[in-house]
């Protein structure tokens, strides 16, 4: 999409505002009147760690949306951490599912859709000098990551997902 921003002959003065939603819950994004476009990044919630596994990371999706394609408001959902991480969404434009103990989430709807980093671990053989049941958590891209493994005694919590909305607004900064 050509926004005219980098065209010297037709340059449009603009400024950027970034809105970050990184706590689990449901929010409402209201479109400003002078909006040119939004660049939306969505990450699913990350899974908690378990006794023998770290938590998998949520998926990721990114989409550039021109103002004429946006309604006046959009429902924003940030997925919570948990045994299975919750799905995060920017309306029906871009979504990313949450991670789990055995896998990672994935993105959908975006110009770019990526799988999260899966966790792995469990059952390191005796004699390696490492505790048994040592696993590794999946790191997130926007907000934290999966929970750590508990090395046989329960794991740590993952973090919530995130939705980052970068607004391109008409007018100089």
């Amino acid at each position, binding site marked *: 999409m050509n926004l005219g921003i980098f065209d010297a002959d037709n340059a449009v003065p603009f400024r950027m505002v970034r809105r970050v939603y990184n706590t689990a819950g*449901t929010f409402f994004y209201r479109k400003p009147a002078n909006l040119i476009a939004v660049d939306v990044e969505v990450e699913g919630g990350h899974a908690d760690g378990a006794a023998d596994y770290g938590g998998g990371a949520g998926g990721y*999706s990114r989409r550039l949306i021109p103002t004429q394609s946006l309604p006046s408001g959009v*429902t924003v*959902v940030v*997925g919570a951490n948990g*045994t*299975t991480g*919750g*799905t995060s*969404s920017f*309306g*029906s*434009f*871009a*979504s990313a*599912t*949450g991670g*789990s103990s055995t*896998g990672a*989430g*994935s993105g*959908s*709807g*975006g110009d770019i859709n990526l799988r999260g980093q899966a966790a792995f671990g469990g*059952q390191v*053989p*005796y004699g390696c000098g490492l505790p*048994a049941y040592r696993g590794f958590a999946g790191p997130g891209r926007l907000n934290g990551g999966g929970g750590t493994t508990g090395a046989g005694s329960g794991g740590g919590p993952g973090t919530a997902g995130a939705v980052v909305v970068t607004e391109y607004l008409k007018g100089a900064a």
Partner: protein
Amino acid sequence: MKYALISPGENDRLCQVEDAPFPVAPPLHWVECADDVTPQTHRYVNGAFELLPPPPAPASSGEVGGVTEL
């Protein structure tokens, strides 16, 4: 009645269950399900929910991955 979020791009993974659906990007979609369906206990196969098989019994404390501690 609840709603299950299905991800076709992840082999019809049952992602989560909610009391009310929220907007998601295709191909993600919501399917009505019974109140007892959860991602930990069920999977979505050929348009129906079925119980997951029970997890295998944990190894005894003296045996890990088929290797017995000396």
